[in-house]
């Protein structure tokens, strides 16, 4: 092989992987990178989109949203909504997965429960919102049951009272999201060798010790991966809150996604909305980098 031929072959080998990647890179660039860059640009412009020649605004819009108490309320609500959702998704998902993995439950019952427990996952956010609006309305089933068993004395307006609205929305989101954890953890549980538990039985481990020393450490990679993904996804939840409460009453369920939406499409302040969107992007990016680092470390 001549020298020229050899270098040509080398070049072909070096370029080939990028050629294979190019279609997907092009699509990602057009559909994700371009809008992202545009939004970042908008956040530094005055009257973005609305004017043909917007002027440079510097950090003015960022200053404006950081001075807005509603932004801080939204950030707090987002954190509360997200943290509670992830914690309960994991706890409920783990409890149900352990139950479905147990030999003590009759196999037929186990199959029925498996279908029942996974049902919330089958519904879209809109359906979930409608279901919970119906269930939690003042004359709904939940109030009726709670009054009958004496937990509440009078009808509670779950979604309309500032004291309960955020908890009610969070509850609906917990209900909608635990199956992802349940299914992932169940798959993880089924992959733990039976020998580990038998060895622990011989060593004298009690049920809670087996959970702490074997099950949880074995599931840890799944728990961390799914929790991080759930955190990223839940932070961006929009339709469930928009349809149930619309961010109200009196901003009590305002989260970053509804806050940004309102800035953009109610106030038509697209520049500030872009600044808010960039803040969401930065938080998500931080979590994503953490997730990628964790995956690499594994």
């Amino acid at each position: 092989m001549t020298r020229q031929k050899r270098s040509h072959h080398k070049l072909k080998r070096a370029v080939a992987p990028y050629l294979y990647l190019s279609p997907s890179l092009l699509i990602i660039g057009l559909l994700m990178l371009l809008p992202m860059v545009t939004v970042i640009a908008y956040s530094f412009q005055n009257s973005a989109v609305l004017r043909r020649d917007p002027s440079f605004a510097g950090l003015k819009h960022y200053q404006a949203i950081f001075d807005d108490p509603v932004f801080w309320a939204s950030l707090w609500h987002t954190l509360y909504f997200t943290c509670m959702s992830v914690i309960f998704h994991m706890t409920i998902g783990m409890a149900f997965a352990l139950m479905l993995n147990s030999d003590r439950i009759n196999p037929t019952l186990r199959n029925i429960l498996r279908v029942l427990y996974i049902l919330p996952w089958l519904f879209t956010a809109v359906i979930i919102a409608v279901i919970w609006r119906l269930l939690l309305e003042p004359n709904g089933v939940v109030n009726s049951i709670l009054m009958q068993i004496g937990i509440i004395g009078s009808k509670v307006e779950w979604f309309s009272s500032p004291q309960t609205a955020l908890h009610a929305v969070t509850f609906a989101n917990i209900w909608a999201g635990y199956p992802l954890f349940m299914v992932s953890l169940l798959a993880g549980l089924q992959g733990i060798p039976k020998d580990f538990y038998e060895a622990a039985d011989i060593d004298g481990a009690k049920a809670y010790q087996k959970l702490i020393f074997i099950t949880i450490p074995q599931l840890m990679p799944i728990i961390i991966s799914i929790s991080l993904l759930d955190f990223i996804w839940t932070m961006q939840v929009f339709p469930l809150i928009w349809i149930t409460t619309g961010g109200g009453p009196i901003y009590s369920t305002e989260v970053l996604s509804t806050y940004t939406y309102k800035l953009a499409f109610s106030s038509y302040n697209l520049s500030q909305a872009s600044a808010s969107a960039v803040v969401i992007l930065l938080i998500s990016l931080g979590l994503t980098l953490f997730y990628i680092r964790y995956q690499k470390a594994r």
Partner: protein
Amino acid sequence: MAEVVLENICKTYGNNFHAIDQLNLSVEDGEFLILVGPSGCGKSTALRMIAGLEDVTSGSLRIGGVDVVDMPPKDRDIAMVFQSYALYPHMTVFENIGFSMRLAGKSKAERKKRVDEIAKTLQLTSLLDSKPANLSGGQRQRVAMGRAMVREPAAFLMDEPLSNLDAKLRVQMRAEITSLQKQLGVTTIYVTHDQTEAMTMGDRVAVLKGGVLQQVDTPKRLYESPVNAFVAGFIGSPSMNLFEATLTGDELMSGALAIRLQDAAFVRRPGLRSYAGRKVVFGIRPEDLYDSSLESGRKYQTIPAKVTSIEELGSEQIVHLNIDTVRVDSGDPDAVQDFGLASNAVAKFEPVSTVRSGSEIRLALDDTKLHFFDPETHLAI
């Protein structure tokens, strides 16, 4: 340390499958007993019942004189080494070995002292901070042993602990486990399907087939006096050659073969006379068959045979032969592998033998080493 006694132990599964049928076995204090048999013979089930990981359907099971049938595994004072080793991948070697002590609420200082002692015995001291994934197969095996030893149990139960190792390491670990058992003097029940492990490691060997105990004896007696054709075929590698013949006078007639029996054969087995004129199964081990061209001095009887293939092992040759006679199946599913399609007998020849594949030879046999079995019951005569 303790004696382990199984009396009329039965195990029946929900689908009415009898995994173990009336198993009676007594393992003495400090003894190394091997449970051996082909796949599905119930040996692992028996071990798991002793460990308490399987319920006993009926019968009595005593460890150190205490009836343990209804006791949970942790109260039986046993330790088990699993085939997979069951080492916790998220724990270090130190944590794996000291796990039972941690469960028992022992202080870290106590744990460290005991684990260090064991690590020293097993040459694991430098590996105490490693995770199992970073260990070789042999090291993992030793950690599994360490985890069993840390509890100072009355009995060790081992379920095919060497089956995941390569052949060379297996030989080394075989010797290590045997010497460790002698050093500790702990009653040990060891399950294997490998008859070489069974013969080389145990004080006594219990052979199981289809959930039924066939024979419990020392390796030497199992080899020399198997109680039936199955044990004869299972113990020894390659398996004993078993053929059908008719006893005519003092001659075994089988196909074109005629093997004359000496009086000593009838003296040793008085029952053999009653088979006169009837069919009988006779067996001869591959190591008792010789290349006649090398054995002219010993005056062995010779029979014609055709060499079908030869396996050169350096120290010996495994010669597959076709003899004009009817081979009898011992009932050992693994034994079938010893015979090719064209051959019905196997011999072990010295490396100096010059026989070639496809050649017709005279096969010398040591008729004092013949074994005889009833053709119906396969019991030894």
